[in-house]
């Protein structure tokens, strides 16, 4: 086929121009300001309690973004995101506690195991669509929960290896990233920034174009010559990787993990956060997580009520702000920005 090639000048051709184009957008400026703002928080307060809340917020941001990537960009709605969180959390915690691995190595290995679980979940998920996928992944997290709770496994493991893995207690007494909460804060901040950067970049890359195509029309994507199976598994693995990163950080932040991390509740948290921020935005998860974590702290004394309140908030969002907070907020800020600049 001969087609006359018509160049369109506006396409960025290399990273430099890609970056220059990106930074010139309004959204990029807000992102940079937010990142700078976050990096200044430890200057305002070194209070471990407050920094801890921020650290938690950043961990949940990564976790929710990993779900948003899978659901918002590839169209695969998982209710089992907690599996990745838990698996990596357990591996990270175990390696730190019993094998004295450095935290970063434990985190890397934990995340890699989560990627493998992404593969394990991804393969059966290929046959499931829509609500069946949601139910299938939900079932998987329930199975993990039950397995890790099993008393008989716990004694077997203890007799064989002399360590605690299974059982209600989980793996506890983990040393955090650093005893200095400021260091912990910055390590988490760096990991979150890089995670969001990579996820965002993937969604804008050629692979991201294929992911979005699968989301919009899977049959049409295969008719375009794309092996959708391969890309769906890849998407589950990428999502597993970042949920795993969140899981490892989570285990270190809370000094341990127990079977509770596999509960559907955690998958539900990821969904609430992503929905509050806005689906298919990646960075919207940051806004969602900020509200979620701070509201969670405020409602700390009413533990039983908090899930109810979050559920109500989710319903309100679905009803009144189905696009989440990120886009409308950016628009408001842009208006203000224009007014300030006198446009």
């Amino acid at each position, binding site marked *: *086929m001969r087609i*006359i*090639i018509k160049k369109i000048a506006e396409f960025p051709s290399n990273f430099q121009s890609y970056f220059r184009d990106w930074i010139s957008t309004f959204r990029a400026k807000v992102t940079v300001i937010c990142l700078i703002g976050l990096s200044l928080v430890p200057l305002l307060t070194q209070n471990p309690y407050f920094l801890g809340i921020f650290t938690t917020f950043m961990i949940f941001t990564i976790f929710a973004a990993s779900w948003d990537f899978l659901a918002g960009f590839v169209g695969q709605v998982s209710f089992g995101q907690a599996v990745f969180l838990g698996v990596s959390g357990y591996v990270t915690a175990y390696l730190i506690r019993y094998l004295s691995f450095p935290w970063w190595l434990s985190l890397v290995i934990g995340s890699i195991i989560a990627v493998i679980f992404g593969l394990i979940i991804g393969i059966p998920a290929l046959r499931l669509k829509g609500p069946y996928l949601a139910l299938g992944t939900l079932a998987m997290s329930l199975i993990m929960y039950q397995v890790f709770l099993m008393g008989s496994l716990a004694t077997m493991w203890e007799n064989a290896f002399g360590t605690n893995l299974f059982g209600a207690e989980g793996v506890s007494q983990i040393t955090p990233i650093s005893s200095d909460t400021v260091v912990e804060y910055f390590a988490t901040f760096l990991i979150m920034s890089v995670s969001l950067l990579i996820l965002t970049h993937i969604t804008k890359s050629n692979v991201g174009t294929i992911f979005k*195509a699968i989301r*919009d029309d899977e049959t049409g994507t295969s008719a*375009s010559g794309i092996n959708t199976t391969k890309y769906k598994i890849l998407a589950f693995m990428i999502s597993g990787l970042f949920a795993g990163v969140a899981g490892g950080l989570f285990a270190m932040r809370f000094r341990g993990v127990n079977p509770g991390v596999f509960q559907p509740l955690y998958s539900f948290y990821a969904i609430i956060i992503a929905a509050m921020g806005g689906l298919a935005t990646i960075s919207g998860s940051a806004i969602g997580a900020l509200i979620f974590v701070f509201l969670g702290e405020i409602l700390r004394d009413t533990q039983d009520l908090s899930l109810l309140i979050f559920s109500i908030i989710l319903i309100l969002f679905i009803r009144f702000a189905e696009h989440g907070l990120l886009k409308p907020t950016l628009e408001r800020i842009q208006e203000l920005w224009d007014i300030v600049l006198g446009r």
Partner: protein
Amino acid sequence: MGVILEVKNLTKKFSGLTAVNDFSFEVRRGEFTGLIGPNGAGKTTLFNLISGHEKPSSGTIRFDGRDITGMKPHQIVNLGIARTFQLVRSFRFMTLLDNIAVSCLSPRGKKVAKEYGIDEYASSILAAVGLVDKARIPPIILPHGDLRKLQIGKALGTNPQLLLLDEPFSGLSHEEQKGITDLIIKLHDDGVTVFMTGHVLRELMHLVPRVVAMHQGKYITEGPPQEVANNKIVLEAYLGKGSEQLA
């Protein structure tokens, strides 16, 4: 010129209904062929079997001498068969440029596209189907005629040797039909083998030199459209629908 597509004794049964019944025919390289038949004749099902979107109950399909029966859709596309759908499909929330880019990212499309860059190549295809000025908008706001063009553009992105067009004129105004006709003729002139369906014989009459006729899943006859239009069984098949549909 050699045979590019060979369909032999192809049968597809849905529970209780035989949509394609022991169907055999050939398409030669570079040919421009139509497939006609009244509503429900089995044309779309035949296309689905060739493109791998449905598995045949029995029979074989050979492309370029190679048995492709039972292959997955993406494998078939990457051998060089692209198709469009009777009911338009698009990637609703992506720009037209990205809609085309998906095909250009298929292994077969990439071989050509990467020489020019994916975006440049995709935009050249948009230009070829007449949608380049709409490159940055999503298909949800396109009129139906443009969606039909987009279908063809998406197929072209995979750099096909054989193009299967399922009812490319359906739902179009006269004006829009003309645009698509010109486009298809241009593609055929460029060396693409074209095989297209239509249930209104008139649309195909002046376009293709040869048509294959199908009725109730069965092969009826083939030949120049004028001859086929006068075939007794073809006439009977269409008569229930009103003979004015004929040329």
